[in-house]
Protein backbone atom coordinates (compact mmCIF):
# COMPACT_ATOMS: atom_id res chain seq x y z
CA UNK A 1 0.00 0.00 0.00
CA UNK A 2 1.55 3.29 -1.04
CA UNK A 3 2.01 6.24 1.26
CA UNK A 4 -0.53 8.15 -0.83
CA UNK A 5 -3.27 5.58 -0.25
CA UNK A 6 -2.81 5.26 3.51
CA UNK A 7 -4.31 7.84 5.87
CA UNK A 8 -1.85 10.24 7.54
CA UNK A 9 -3.02 9.34 11.04
CA UNK A 10 -1.82 5.79 10.70
CA UNK A 11 0.87 4.00 12.62
CA UNK A 12 2.47 0.79 11.45
CA UNK A 13 4.14 -1.65 13.79
CA UNK A 14 6.13 -4.15 11.73
CA UNK A 15 7.30 -7.19 13.67
CA UNK A 16 9.81 -9.48 11.98
CA UNK A 17 10.04 -13.09 13.13
CA UNK A 18 12.34 -15.98 12.19
CA UNK A 19 9.99 -18.39 10.45
CA UNK A 20 11.68 -19.78 7.34
CA UNK A 21 14.93 -21.80 7.44
CA UNK A 22 16.65 -18.84 5.76
CA UNK A 23 15.70 -16.46 8.58
CA UNK A 24 19.03 -16.88 10.30
CA UNK A 25 19.41 -13.38 11.71
CA UNK A 26 17.46 -10.18 12.23
CA UNK A 27 16.33 -8.36 9.07
CA UNK A 28 19.16 -6.64 7.25
CA UNK A 29 19.25 -2.97 6.32
CA UNK A 30 17.94 -3.64 2.78
CA UNK A 31 15.09 -5.70 4.22
CA UNK A 32 14.20 -2.99 6.72
CA UNK A 33 14.25 -0.48 3.86
CA UNK A 34 11.27 -2.24 2.26
CA UNK A 35 9.15 -0.40 4.82
CA UNK A 36 10.51 3.08 4.35
CA UNK A 37 7.53 5.16 5.49
CA UNK A 38 8.18 7.37 8.51
CA UNK A 39 5.00 6.11 10.15
CA UNK A 40 6.54 2.65 10.52
CA UNK A 41 8.36 1.35 13.58
CA UNK A 42 10.10 -2.00 13.22
CA UNK A 43 10.82 -4.81 15.66
CA UNK A 44 12.65 -8.13 15.65
CA UNK A 45 10.89 -10.90 17.58
CA UNK A 46 13.21 -13.94 17.59
CA UNK A 47 11.38 -15.62 20.49
CA UNK A 48 7.89 -15.10 19.01
CA UNK A 49 6.69 -13.35 22.15
CA UNK A 50 4.05 -11.29 20.35
CA UNK A 51 2.21 -14.09 18.55
CA UNK A 52 0.41 -15.50 21.63
CA UNK A 53 -0.64 -12.01 22.72
CA UNK A 54 -2.35 -11.43 19.40
CA UNK A 55 -3.78 -14.95 19.15
CA UNK A 56 -5.37 -14.75 22.60
CA UNK A 57 -7.97 -12.23 21.45
CA UNK A 58 -8.78 -13.59 18.03
CA UNK A 59 -12.03 -15.39 17.28
CA UNK A 60 -11.55 -19.11 16.85
CA UNK A 61 -10.21 -19.95 13.41
CA UNK A 62 -9.09 -16.41 12.61
CA UNK A 63 -7.33 -15.46 10.44
CA UNK A 64 -7.45 -18.93 8.96
CA UNK A 65 -3.97 -18.97 7.60
CA UNK A 66 -0.34 -18.39 8.23
CA UNK A 67 0.63 -20.49 11.18
CA UNK A 68 4.17 -21.80 11.47
CA UNK A 69 3.93 -24.29 14.28
CA UNK A 70 2.12 -22.27 16.92
CA UNK A 71 3.34 -18.91 15.65
CA UNK A 72 1.33 -16.45 13.61
CA UNK A 73 3.16 -14.75 10.76
CA UNK A 74 2.66 -13.14 7.33
CA UNK A 75 -0.41 -11.30 8.57
CA UNK A 76 -1.71 -7.77 8.76
CA UNK A 77 -4.13 -6.62 11.46
CA UNK A 78 -5.97 -3.33 11.84
CA UNK A 79 -6.55 -1.87 15.29
CA UNK A 80 -8.93 1.10 15.15
CA UNK A 81 -8.59 4.11 17.44
CA UNK A 82 -9.39 3.11 20.99
CA UNK A 83 -8.61 -0.57 20.59
CA UNK A 84 -5.84 -1.91 22.76
CA UNK A 85 -3.46 -4.77 22.05
CA UNK A 86 -3.80 -7.37 24.78
CA UNK A 87 -7.40 -6.38 25.51
CA UNK A 88 -9.23 -6.10 22.19
CA UNK A 89 -9.23 -8.18 19.03
CA UNK A 90 -8.16 -6.45 15.82
CA UNK A 91 -10.99 -5.03 13.75
CA UNK A 92 -9.67 -6.90 10.73
CA UNK A 93 -6.92 -9.43 10.19
CA UNK A 94 -5.79 -11.17 7.05
CA UNK A 95 -2.91 -13.07 5.54
CA UNK A 96 -0.72 -13.72 3.62
CA UNK A 97 0.14 -10.04 3.50
CA UNK A 98 0.81 -10.06 -0.26
CA UNK A 99 -2.71 -11.37 -0.86
CA UNK A 100 -4.30 -8.94 1.57
CA UNK A 101 -3.57 -5.62 -0.14
CA UNK A 102 -6.94 -5.37 -1.88
CA UNK A 103 -8.73 -6.16 1.37
CA UNK A 104 -6.59 -3.62 3.22
CA UNK A 105 -7.37 -0.90 0.66
CA UNK A 106 -11.05 -1.78 0.95
CA UNK A 107 -10.87 -1.47 4.73
CA UNK A 108 -9.42 2.03 4.48
CA UNK A 109 -11.88 2.94 1.79
CA UNK A 110 -14.70 1.90 4.06
CA UNK A 111 -13.23 3.74 7.03
CA UNK A 112 -12.90 6.91 4.95
CA UNK A 113 -16.56 6.65 3.93
CA UNK A 114 -17.65 6.18 7.51
CA UNK A 115 -16.11 9.46 8.58
Amino acid at each position, binding site marked *: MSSKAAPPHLRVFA*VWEPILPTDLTSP*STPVLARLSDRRVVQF*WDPAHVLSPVLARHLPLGEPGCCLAGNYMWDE*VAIFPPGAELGRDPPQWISGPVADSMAGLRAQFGQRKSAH
Partner: protein
Amino acid sequence: MARVRHPWLAILIAAGIAIVAYGAWSNWGPRKTPPGQPPLTQLTAANLVSFEAQFNAEANHTRLLLLLSPT
Protein backbone atom coordinates in the same frame (compact mmCIF):
# COMPACT_ATOMS: atom_id res chain seq x y z
CA MET B 1 57.88 -8.58 -13.50
CA ALA B 2 56.39 -12.04 -12.91
CA ARG B 3 53.40 -12.92 -15.04
CA VAL B 4 50.19 -14.10 -13.42
CA ARG B 5 49.72 -17.60 -14.76
CA HIS B 6 46.00 -17.86 -14.38
CA PRO B 7 44.47 -14.38 -14.16
CA TRP B 8 40.99 -15.87 -14.32
CA LEU B 9 41.74 -17.71 -11.07
CA ALA B 10 42.61 -14.47 -9.33
CA ILE B 11 39.39 -12.91 -10.58
CA LEU B 12 37.42 -15.93 -9.40
CA ILE B 13 38.98 -15.81 -5.95
CA ALA B 14 38.38 -12.06 -5.68
CA ALA B 15 34.74 -12.55 -6.69
CA GLY B 16 34.34 -15.32 -4.13
CA ILE B 17 35.79 -13.16 -1.38
CA ALA B 18 33.46 -10.32 -2.38
CA ILE B 19 30.44 -12.61 -2.25
CA VAL B 20 31.41 -13.99 1.15
CA ALA B 21 32.06 -10.49 2.45
CA TYR B 22 28.66 -9.30 1.22
CA GLY B 23 26.97 -12.31 2.81
CA ALA B 24 28.72 -11.68 6.11
CA TRP B 25 27.79 -8.00 6.04
CA SER B 26 24.22 -8.86 5.15
CA ASN B 27 23.91 -11.38 7.98
CA TRP B 28 25.97 -9.80 10.72
CA GLY B 29 26.38 -6.18 9.74
CA PRO B 30 24.59 -3.26 11.42
CA ARG B 31 20.87 -3.04 10.93
CA LYS B 32 19.75 0.44 9.99
CA THR B 33 16.14 1.42 9.73
CA PRO B 34 15.17 3.97 7.05
CA PRO B 35 15.48 7.70 7.80
CA GLY B 36 12.79 9.00 10.11
CA GLN B 37 12.24 5.67 11.86
CA PRO B 38 13.49 4.69 15.30
CA PRO B 39 16.14 1.94 15.47
CA LEU B 40 15.16 -1.72 15.15
CA THR B 41 14.16 -3.00 18.58
CA GLN B 42 14.38 -6.62 19.63
CA LEU B 43 11.31 -7.92 21.42
CA THR B 44 11.80 -10.14 24.44
CA ALA B 45 9.56 -11.42 27.20
CA ALA B 46 11.09 -8.71 29.38
CA ASN B 47 10.16 -5.77 27.14
CA LEU B 48 6.91 -7.09 25.67
CA VAL B 49 4.97 -4.99 28.17
CA SER B 50 6.79 -1.91 26.85
CA PHE B 51 5.84 -2.87 23.31
CA GLU B 52 2.18 -3.16 24.27
CA ALA B 53 2.37 0.17 26.08
CA GLN B 54 3.97 1.81 23.03
CA PHE B 55 1.33 0.30 20.73
CA ASN B 56 -1.52 1.35 23.00
CA ALA B 57 -0.07 4.83 23.54
CA GLU B 58 -0.91 5.42 19.88
CA ALA B 59 -4.54 4.43 20.46
CA ASN B 60 -5.72 7.76 19.07
CA HIS B 61 -4.51 6.49 15.68
CA THR B 62 -5.45 3.57 13.50
CA ARG B 63 -2.61 1.06 13.84
CA LEU B 64 -1.50 -1.68 11.52
CA LEU B 65 0.29 -4.62 13.03
CA LEU B 66 2.37 -6.56 10.52
CA LEU B 67 3.86 -9.96 11.25
CA LEU B 68 6.59 -10.72 8.71
CA SER B 69 9.59 -12.90 8.08
CA PRO B 70 12.81 -11.38 6.72
CA THR B 71 13.37 -13.79 3.81
